[in-house]
């Protein structure tokens, strides 16, 4: 694929939120610096509320850092761009548009009418929802909606793909299928993927790097490279070793958990 190489860098990024009623502020993340580049698949794990979604939203350009800088190829991120696609924790489909139109939404916005029909077709067959193209989102199951949301973002072929627990709502079986589906796409396109997950196994299985976070304030505890050749098998020794290591870092006592 002909997507350009990108380097995403967070340098000394902190983000605080003002509370609504009191004068206090919540420090969501504090002094985070990481560098990531195309071809990497980065899993982000950490306890709830440690600022994982905040990092993704900063990279997407939905919010601005309090201090520090987010840059893509040296250029500071100041707003959203279809080049940095994001799949949210909830499917957030537009309920008044059919599946087809939801998927084509961003091409419509950009006025790319000519290629639209073909691209939508491609995306629909990718997720196997040919029969549901005319349906509205509230006629879909949760897993179907999540799949539509995924390709709605992928249709832009973003150089940076941000995934905020995209598979959280799926059953174990569909989830594994979708994991493989996402990996296949990533292997083909070699974009930069940054995925938040609660599931340590998923993080190891999919990622080339696992970032372990700690909360209050959110910061990165460990940056663990994963050798993909050794961890495609979920019962391999390397896989189990990684899992124990990460669970220990996440303050779970008893490293034999799992």
């Amino acid at each position, binding site marked *: 694929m002909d997507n350009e190489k990108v380097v995403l860098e967070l340098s000394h990024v902190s983000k605080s939120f003002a509370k609504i009623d009191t004068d206090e502020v919540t420090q969501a993340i504090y002094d985070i610096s990481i560098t990531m580049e195309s071809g990497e698949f980065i899993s982000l794990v950490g306890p709830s509320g440690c600022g994982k979604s905040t990092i993704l939203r900063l990279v997407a350009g939905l919010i601005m850092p309090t201090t520090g800088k987010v840059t893509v190829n040296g250029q500071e991120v100041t707003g959203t761009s279809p080049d*940095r696609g994001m799949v949210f924790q909830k499917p957030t489909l537009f309920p008044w548009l059919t599946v087809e139109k939801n998927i084509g*939404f961003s091409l419509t916005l950009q006025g790319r009418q000519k290629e639209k029909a073909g691209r939508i077709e491609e995306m629909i067959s990718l997720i196997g929802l040919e029969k549901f193209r005319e349906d509205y*989102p509230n006629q879909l199951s949760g897993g179907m909606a999540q799949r539509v949301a995924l390709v709605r973002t992928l249709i832009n072929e973003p150089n940076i793909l941000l995934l905020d627990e995209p598979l959280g709502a799926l059953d174990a079986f569909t989830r594994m299928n979708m994991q493989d589906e996402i990996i296949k796409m990533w292997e083909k396109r070699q974009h930069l993927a940054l995925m938040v997950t609660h599931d340590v196994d998923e993080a190891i299985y999919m990622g080339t790097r696992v970032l372990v976070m700690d909360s209050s304030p959110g910061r990165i505890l460990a940056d663990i490279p994963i050798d993909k050749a050794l961890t495609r098998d979920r019962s391999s020794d390397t896989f189990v070793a990684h899992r124990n290591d990460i669970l220990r870092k996440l303050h779970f006592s008893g490293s034999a958990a799992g």
Partner: protein
Amino acid sequence: MPQKEALQNAAESLQIGGLTRKQLQKLESKEKTKKDKRFEAVTLSLPILCGLIAVAEYLYIPDNRPNHDPHMYLYVLFGFIAAYVIYLVVALIRQAGGESAVYEKVHYKAPRYAALFLLAALYDYLTLKTGILTQPFVPCMNFIICAAVGDRMMLWDCTIHTLLLLFLGYSIGVLLGLITGIACGYSKRCRYWVDPVINFLGPIPTSTWIPIMMVVASSLFGGAVFIIALGSWFAVTVASMTGVHNVDKDLFDAARTLGAKERQLVFRVAIPHAMPSILQGCTQAMGSSCTAIMIAEMLGVKSGLGWYMTWAKAWASYDKMFAALFVICLIFTLVTKSLDLVKRHVLRWQTGVESNG
């Protein structure tokens, strides 16, 4: 039923996905027993029966007062019976062809139609036949129909005037309401200026303005348009403001990451998302417009159905007054119904599949 069994088998062998919607409906509906069928037949013939009762009541009970042109009412009664019969026949033909939606509807509505015929008979009995309802203030059906037919040119003229006034005022109000409402829902600064206006005007019923308008406005027609527009403007502004203001923030975020610019956020996310609320406002606006127009016509404007009613009352032609009332009833029902159809079409995504009915 063998046909049903065959369907079931087909469904099992073909997978449910191979079914059409019609077949699915048939499969899911209960089997009808003989008794059910007989009961249905009775229900369906009820309106015809009651219509004939109304005819008999009219023909065979002696009149209490002189009745000129007595066949007018009969024409109308037979007209309605004939309309029902045609409707029923169409429904039966459609059902035989496998599409049962029309049939279900007729079956559902038949008791109501029957009740209407009985009501007409009762009304005729209370007025023409016995005079229990004070004559001539409550004229019988035949008088009303004769009045309507006799004065049809004038009534038609008044109807056109009313509709013109209504649509002019309503569409101006709705259009401006949409603009202010959406702008205010989206921009804080706009809300800062419009909020006080709404809070100040909100509690004042539209009809309060009518006497003022009659003094101030150079043309009463223009004044009436203004009042109707004001009422609709208010309803639509409030509804679309809340609608746009309450848009799911996550949808905005999603649209932004998909490349939406500010303007696209408004037109492609905020407005469609606020559509249920906006249309709710439009319906409300129509209600307030209908009220305002009647009051305006009764108090000042020298045309239209409201004016016609007061005029007829002044000449003690109560039959004409009632005729106008029926026409008003009819057009307002039609207007509301068509608005409802628009709403159902635009909001079809809310229910997903339209209900079978």
